């Protein structure tokens, strides 16, 4: 985006010698090629497709939990059953089916992850955008606030608050969302500072468009490629944080999230007695889901870099 040169590539030639309409279509073919497959190697793209498949299967599991899970996660069967025919992933100390717990748990984990990431990204990008676009006083104040939030030790604060307030996963999502926007704000600000000096923002100003319109239709769309991977990666870190908080026993005991499952497995002797299926499954789920997000996120980042590199 930054490096668009006037008359780049083959179009400049065909344009200057025959400016008639016919050539535009012929030129399209020539020009399109470099932009259609500009990014990364084939292997990298395949890996990111795997990430996408994993991500969407978890998403589907969370949405259609009630159809997919073999039984109610709160129903009791024989306890401590290893993976077998009746219960594919075995049962826990209360005899609850682990597969069903996992599928229902994805709902909670994803809601916390998405909710926190959505909130953090929204706050972060709007603060960064306003600071970067308006510069001056607005920038000073907003970045000052960001600095203050950066200084707050986040995990300890969440632990303290979760311990004092009634632990609920909404609270955890809210807390993470309102604390984790700082890095997004910083990155978005620096990009907005760059975009506001671009020629097209200047020319939109010279056409008499309002700041609001320029922000919405010119600056924000050009930030999306930056915000999207940031959003995905903050889903991943929010989910890890949720699991760690749950594992520490500060999660919502009435909700079965993946982190909560590991916590139960730990506190009720799953580790000591070697009931590996009890804690292994949720752990793997967290790992694979975070991995899928990181794959997609880094693919998006890489793609943007290679597009910029090409131009």
């Amino acid at each position, binding site marked *: 985006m930054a490096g668009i*040169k006037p008359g780049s590539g083959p179009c*400049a030639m065909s344009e200057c010698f025959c400016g008639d309409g016919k050539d535009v279509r012929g030129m*399209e073919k020539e020009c399109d090629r470099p932009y259609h497959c500009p990014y990364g190697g084939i292997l990298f793209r395949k890996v990111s497709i795997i990430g996408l498949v994993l991500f969407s299967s978890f998403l589907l599991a969370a949405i259609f939990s009630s159809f997919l899970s073999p039984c109610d996660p709160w129903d009791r069967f024989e306890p401590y059953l290893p993976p077998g025919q009746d219960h594919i992933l075995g049962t826990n100390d209360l005899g609850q089916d682990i597969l069903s717990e996992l599928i229902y748990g994805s709902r909670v984990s994803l809601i916390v992850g998405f909710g926190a990431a959505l909130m953090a990204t929204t706050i972060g990008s709007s603060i960064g955008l306003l600071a970067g676009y308006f510069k001056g006083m607005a920038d000073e104040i907003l970045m000052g606030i960001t600095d203050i939030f950066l200084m707050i030790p986040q995990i300890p604060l969440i632990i303290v608050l979760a311990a004092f307030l009634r632990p609920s996963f909404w609270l955890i999502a809210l807390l993470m969302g309102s604390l984790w926007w700082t890095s997004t704000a910083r990155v978005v600000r620096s990009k907005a500072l760059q975009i506001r000096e671009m020629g097209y923002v200047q020319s939109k100003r*010279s056409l*008499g468009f309002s700041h609001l319109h320029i922000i919405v239709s010119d600056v924000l769309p050009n930030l999306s490629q930056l915000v999207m991977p940031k959003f995905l990666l903050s889903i991943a870190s929010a989910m890890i944080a949720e699991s760690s908080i749950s594992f520490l026993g500060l999660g919502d005991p009435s909700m079965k999230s993946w982190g909560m499952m590991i916590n139960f497995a730990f506190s009720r002797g799953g580790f000591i007695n070697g009931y590996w299926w009890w804690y292994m499954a949720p752990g793997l789920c967290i790992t694979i889901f975070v991995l899928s997000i990181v794959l997609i996120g880094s693919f998006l980042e890489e793609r943007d870099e290679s597009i910029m590199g090409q131009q």
Partner: protein
Amino acid sequence: MNRHLPSSSYFRPLLCIDEMYVSFDTSLGRVKAAQNICLELHERETLAIVGETGCGKSVIASAILQLLPSNASVKGKAIFLGRDLLSLGEREMADIRGQEIAIIFQNPSLSLNPIMKVAEQVAEPLQIHRRLPRHRAISKAEDMLSRFKLGDKASPVMYPFQLSGGMNQRVMIATSMILSPKILIADEPSKGLDQSLARQVMKELAGIKDEIGASLLLITHDLLLAKEVSDRIAVMYCGEIVEAGSSAEIFDEPLHPYTKALLNCLPEMGFKPIPGSSPSMIDPPEGCRFYPRCRERLDRCLLSPKMIKVESDDGDREVRCWLY
């Protein structure tokens, strides 16, 4: 007011810049980018401001539309239809920008939003200022683009990076002309385009300008381009207008030593460079700005010369030099 540019056209003045000073406060000192600028732009005429890079041409254009960064200070007046543009508020200015006075910036490819289709960009002013619904604005935009030979099916739905520099320049022109502004400012429209293409784009621009009855303020360093399209020319050197008059006269009989030297730089005239280099705008030379590089300098050139009217056939012209 008596020091305004002479008029060669019969139309009344549309924009009247009176004693405008523009300076920038920087860490190195105060950059005096434009000094004592007096210009009149008449209805339907084309006025070219020529001068070498960094002489303050573009600053005038941005100052008129209040598009300068916050470290700039602007003094003087720019009267447009009875209103002083330099003292208007941001809201009133937004109504003038695009609708009454439009500007085409240098480097067309960077002046378009890279992730918006070109037809949408051309349609945007209609949607915002005229409140047209999207589909009507787009169809009008496509009509406009077709007048600039971008009317085939493919180009309106393309993105700026898929078009060449010349095509993007036409898109820019279409965007700024779509609201039929009274004044069009073209800031180095030929930059980044090759010679033949620049001529072609300028021809199209001049054509549509005559059609909607707009005036054109052309800012360029391309002397031949200025000669071809403009009615009058103002020559700038180091933030000052040194000579002004009808374009034919300026080329036939240049008065100011700088104009003479500038014309001698043209390949047709022998490609003779001006000795010395452009003076600093922070600490400009005493007296006549061109004194250190002038071949015809006199002792009194160390005093600042005033703009003087000179008799000529084609209406009167002005020059800032002690020789006349």
